[in-house]
């Protein structure tokens, strides 16, 4: 119990292998710390599995671009506020980034943010958000919910990336249109 700030072997390996926001990359909107937090959240939403995840496909840069070029000031400041609240919560728990949390705590964070944003899809919203993540662990939730912005941006940023479209999914080939068994295709078209 308690708030884990354990550097698990997996996390160390990930850091050492360079799977983190590129220090040399410039961001148009996000600060370095914001980018690190966003990157961690994106990777939690779409992680590395048998195919690369959001981090490897640079989703944080896509999110940064959207904030810089497409969001209005209201959205920018809301996003910034939500990330700042998470940054403060991380600081309070002695972690610089999402990855430095132990797996259970990271899971509680993401689950709380997700349930707050998509309450209709959670059977135990009360538990996850109110009695669980928010009340017990002080995970910050506020309006507009962060994941209402970050979930669609992460999904779009990943599945329109070359990695997401060609390794995780498949590009629908340029062949005459036909009705085929799903098993023949095997996965969603990009």
């Amino acid at each position, binding site marked *: 119990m308690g708030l884990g700030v354990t550097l698990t072997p997996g996390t160390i390996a990930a850091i050492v292998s360079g799977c983190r926001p590129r220090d040399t990359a410039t961001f148009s909107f996000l600060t370095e710390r914001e980018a690190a937090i966003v990157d961690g959240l994106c990777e*939690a*939403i*779409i*992680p590395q*599995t048998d195919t690369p*995840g959001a981090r490897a496909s640079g989703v944080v840069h*896509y999110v940064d*671009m959207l904030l810089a*070029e*497409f969001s209005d000031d209201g959205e920018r400041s809301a996003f910034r506020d939500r990330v700042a609240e998470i940054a403060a919560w991380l600081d309070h728990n002695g972690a610089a980034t999402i990855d430095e949390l132990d797996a259970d705590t990271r*899971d509680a964070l*993401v*689950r709380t943010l*997700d*349930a707050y*944003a*998509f309450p209709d*899809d*959670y059977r135990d919203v009360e538990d996850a958000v109110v009695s669980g993540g928010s009340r017990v662990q002080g995970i910050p939730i506020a309006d507009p919910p962060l994941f209402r912005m970050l*979930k*669609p941006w992460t*999904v*779009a*940023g990943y*599945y*329109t*990336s*070359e990695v*997401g*479209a060609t390794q*995780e*999914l498949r*590009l*629908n*080939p*340029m*062949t*005459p*249109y*036909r*009705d*085929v*068994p*799903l*098993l*023949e*295709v095997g*996965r*969603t*078209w*990009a």
Partner: protein
Amino acid sequence: MNLKSRANDYDAIVVGTGMTGGWAMRILTEAGLKTLALDRGRMVEHGADYVTEHRNAWEMPWRGGRVHSNDLEHYPIQQRTYAFSEYTRHWFVRDTDTPYGQDLPFDWIQPDMVGGKSVLWGRQSYRWSAPDFRSNLEDGHGVDWPIRYEDLEPWYEHVERIVGISGSAEALPELPDSIFQTPMAMNAAEKLAKARIEEQHPDRHVIIGRVAVLTEPLEGRAPCHYCGPCERGCSTRSYYSTLNSALPAAQRTGNLTLLSRRIAHSVMYRDGRATGVRVINMESGEHEEYTARVVFLCASAPGTLRVMLNSKSEDFPDGIANSSGVLGKYFLNHHARVGASGRMEEVLDRYYEGNRPNGLFIPRFRNLDASSRHPDFRRGYCFLGSAGRAGWGRGSSIAGFGASFKEELREPGDWWISLQAFGEVLPYENNYVYLDDTMTDKWGMPSLRFHVRRFENELAMRKDMAATAAEMLVAAGAVDVEQYDNEHIAPGNNNHEMGGARMGRDPRTSVLNEWNQCHDVPNLFVTDGACMTSAACQNPSLTYMALTARATFNAVELLENGAL
């Protein structure tokens, strides 16, 4: 000096190089006439200028989809069309350069290149039926068409042999078959929906779209390779457009001069005849004059009306060929953005392969005869629709994260199925366009102003459009069926604007005769959508092309006989 050798003198001038201008230029040049084609759009080099063709999302600066604040600033109207995106922005005019007036909301979607909207169009192609040409006569709205289906039938055949339409022969009286290439395929959900809808509603038919996209080679153009977004441009010439077909054919004759970046300012007129066209050169700002024995206006309905209204003379103070006073009036369109959608939880073991540039079509089933008479409205509507499976996009608005979330999105979701109705708008004197005294475009050409709304017949029809769409989706087995009526989307948004220079027998109530020839000015022809006397509900471009082919061959004959 031999006047005929002046560089600005031609046998024929065609204003506009889109859907109909392409046909006029081809027929005129193939008949041996020295033809000048003018377009306000920029020149396009086939192939090389299709700069976003086959580009993957990750190869685009903004991943292809979004409307940027720049777009909102420079393209406030153009960005409203479904066809506008990062992939196609370069095909549209900048609204800030070409403003127009709206007495009532009207989205005027305007292309900015040679080829016009034939580059962008949805390619859906349907013949009118015999009753469509008699609608006005039968219910008294508008004036009677001066032609019947029998007059146009050979010309539908003529253009279809060159355009290339893929579709299924159905022998439906309300929707005559075209000359078809192999039809495209339906997916499993569409097949299921078709079977169930037709079983429960034997008077309704669900067919694969009839689309101007090749499934077999034609005239050196290759069959479609199913990359998906035709509107980016097609190097293989697989869909019909001026760039893919009419322009190279015209150029092969050696009789074509094509001048781009020329705004048609006015038709020059003297002593009962059009003498040529005056244009604004968009690069120099200067006015240029070109003379010809015959002038074809094919600049799109609003584009042509704008030129005609701006062509003032002592004989025609209210616009050339306007002794009737109806020029600009009885402006038509189709009303749409109404229908239904739902979800199908069956045939989940089926998927599809290939990116089909086509969908489903449901021909009109209302007000065809006594038994299909609807108490609340006249005329009718058809449906365009399709089914597909939810993809990764559904992940944007659902709970879930981590490996299980990713795994879930790796499989396609349920089938979605949707139908959108397109309805005939009646001819109303109070739907019209006119020139705006207070506004010009960046080059000094007076702007057009639209005064167009939906009236009672359209509103009553929309209720039925949404209801029958939902009824059919429920019959198809869909769940969570929802109807919609996006009445806030302005007329014009779904294109198909037409009318304003209608054909008719009586010069007192129409602008054009049965040959698309101005009653008042015999060597001036209008063959684009402006000529339409009624709108029917079928996608109109095939009919525009057939009318153009008929009118142009006739004009050539008149010229050869010395009648013009």
